């Protein structure tokens, strides 16, 4: 295989893998503060894209971006208050079922508001592909990678060095102890939903120029993002990035395997890797077995 072809597949893998990574980050934030998997995470991605497509018609993209992120973060808060908070004393499984319901609700609402068509969004900078050693790369791919890096760095700083970030981690480590030391767990859960909805929205906004957005696209992102989070080690931020990129690259190189119909099985390759890896190391690439044993899910 030529270098240019390998590079072409690698860029395709990194592009889609970065999005899975951002979705996985969103999963991890909520998982870490509440212990639940928010299966409506994919819908936050879809809403981010949808809001931006609509707002971009009224204002420059630079303004539409933050407003859309804020709007989706508010949707995340409302979702938490309306659906999760009233049932906060229920078991983890019940809460996860609620998020599935939330996912259907958001999807249905989006279908009513935006209809069933797919919408394009113009790229942030030029649309002209750049030639790197024979591989054609859209400038938007660099935006995607850059945004992922920035989100990752900011999140790490937030969780390590700010009081709020530390408080959120405390909730994850020991809910009762966190409450006793004066942390409002309620507020931290709300914040985690806002944060993960916002990150989901960012993922949706940066990916829409290279794909398209329609009301039903969220479930696919949620599935792959979840796979990425599990592969990387549930709850570990760096694991989300490693897991996301691994799955993205596996998909693209799997589809490129030189046999007839390989591209039909690309999801299969990615999930097979996940399966094999988890059989060997159930806590994920960067997860630690001792920690995962303490968790409820």
């Amino acid at each position, binding site marked *: 295989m030529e270098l240019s072809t390998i590079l072409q597949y690698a860029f395709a893998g990194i592009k889609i893998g970065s999005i899975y990574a951002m979705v996985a980050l969103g999963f991890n934030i909520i998982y870490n503060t509440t212990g639940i998997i928010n299966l409506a995470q994919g819908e936050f991605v879809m809403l981010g894209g949808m809001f931006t497509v609509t707002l971009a018609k009224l204002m420059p993209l630079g303004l539409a971006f933050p407003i859309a992120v804020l709007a989706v973060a508010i949707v995340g808060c409302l979702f938490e208050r309306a659906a999760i908070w009233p049932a906060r004393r229920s078991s983890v499984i019940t809460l996860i079922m609620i998020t599935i319901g939330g996912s259907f609700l958001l999807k249905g609402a989006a279908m009513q508001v935006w209809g069933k068509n797919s919408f*394009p969004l113009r790229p942030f900078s030029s649309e002209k592909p750049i030639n790197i050693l024979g591989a054609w790369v859209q400038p938007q791919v660099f935006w995607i990678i850059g945004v992922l890096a920035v989100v990752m760095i900011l999140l790490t700083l937030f969780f390590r060095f700010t009081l709020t970030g530390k408080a959120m981690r405390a909730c994850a480590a020991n809910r009762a102890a966190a409450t006793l030391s004066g942390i409002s767990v309620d507020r931290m859960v709300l914040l985690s939903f806002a944060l993960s909805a916002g990150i989901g929205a960012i993922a949706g906004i940066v990916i829409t120029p290279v794909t398209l957005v329609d009301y039903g696209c969220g479930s696919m992102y949620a599935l792959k993002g979840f796979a990425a989070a599990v592969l990387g080690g549930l709850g570990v931020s760096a694991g989300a990035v490693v897991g996301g990129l691994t799955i993205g690259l596996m998909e693209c190189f799997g589809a490129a395997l030189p046999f007839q119909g390989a591209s039909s099985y690309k999801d299969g390759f990615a999930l097979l890797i996940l399966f094999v890896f988890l059989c060997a190391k159930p806590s994920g690439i960067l997860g630690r077995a001792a920690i995962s044993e303490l968790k409820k899910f």
Partner: protein
Amino acid sequence: MKRICIGMTALVLTAMLVVTGCKKEKEEELALAPYKVGAVFAVTGPASWLGEPEKNTAEMIAKQINDAGGINGHPLELIVEDTTGEETATVNAMKKLVDKDGVCAVIGPSRSGTSMAIINIAEDKKVPLVSCAAAAAIVVPVKKWVFKVPQMDSDCVRRIYDYMKEKGWTKAAIITGTTGFGAAGRDQLIKLAKEYNMEIVADETYGPKDTDMTVQLTKIKAANAQALINWSIVPGQSTVIKNARQLGLTIPLFQSHGFGNIEYVKAAGAAAEGVLFPAGALLGPEGLPDDDPQKKLLLQYKNDYETKYSDAVSTFGGHAYDALTLVVKALKAVGDDRAKIRDHIENTTGFVGTAGVFNYSPQDHCGLDKTAFVMYTVKAGKFVPVEE
């Protein structure tokens, strides 16, 4: 407690009042028993771009018929079920329509895969089914109770290969969706390539929810094809166009007749310029000669649809138009007996529809040939017939 009781009673009474009121009104309206026709369309889900215009069209026609006094005095009762584009839901919907509602004929489904899934039910229960999906496999070999109104995908392939031959292009790369429509198209592309001496130099596929086809197209780029043919109905067909152009792939790009909805062009943006695809005459009826048998009907339907739904007309809505009109003509002639309707449809000839002029026979349950296709291209974001 007492107040609740009173409240409940009031509620029940009101409900009863409403129900009886409705019933009375209905009885007065219906002089004769309604003719029940079922419709199974992918109103939601990934194929909703097909199902929604189909549902809109069918409902519009049913209303027009009932406003004009029904069919020989019988009102037309159209029962629409949403298949969400999935086989299981379609099978359930079909069973409900046939067993519970007792319809005399069913129009739809929208997709080839879902159509294939309910052929057995139509055959077993002896209910005429007029499919709105393209795959030739639906009516080849002929099934006694199954008809279809869209042009055959095999004829669409012929139209594309004819065009390529004329231009002297003999090496084709194909990329198809893994849905029923895509898979059936792929079969025809490969089967007919031999007949036309076409060489398929690359053969790639993608799933209905895929958002990136860069990998498949990179493989195709390396294969040195003279033209790329994409076959799918999902939004993926817009992504293929975008990805192909982003990779610097400059060969001519063909789409199937599944591209006949201007929304796909909007979604692909500038990349869609120059894309070629065969479709029915409905996309540009204004350009037809005045003596064309379809012209008047096409303009009328286009105008009615666009006024009523303030949305651009698509060939898919046209299929629902043809299917329902075909059934209504049979109802008018022979009443609502299932077997008689079937026989009447099979003997329909010279029926002018939106997809062409239909001539059904016991050997041909599609009724159209490749002349029902016009080659279109995209120019300045609009469908324009190709000058040949």
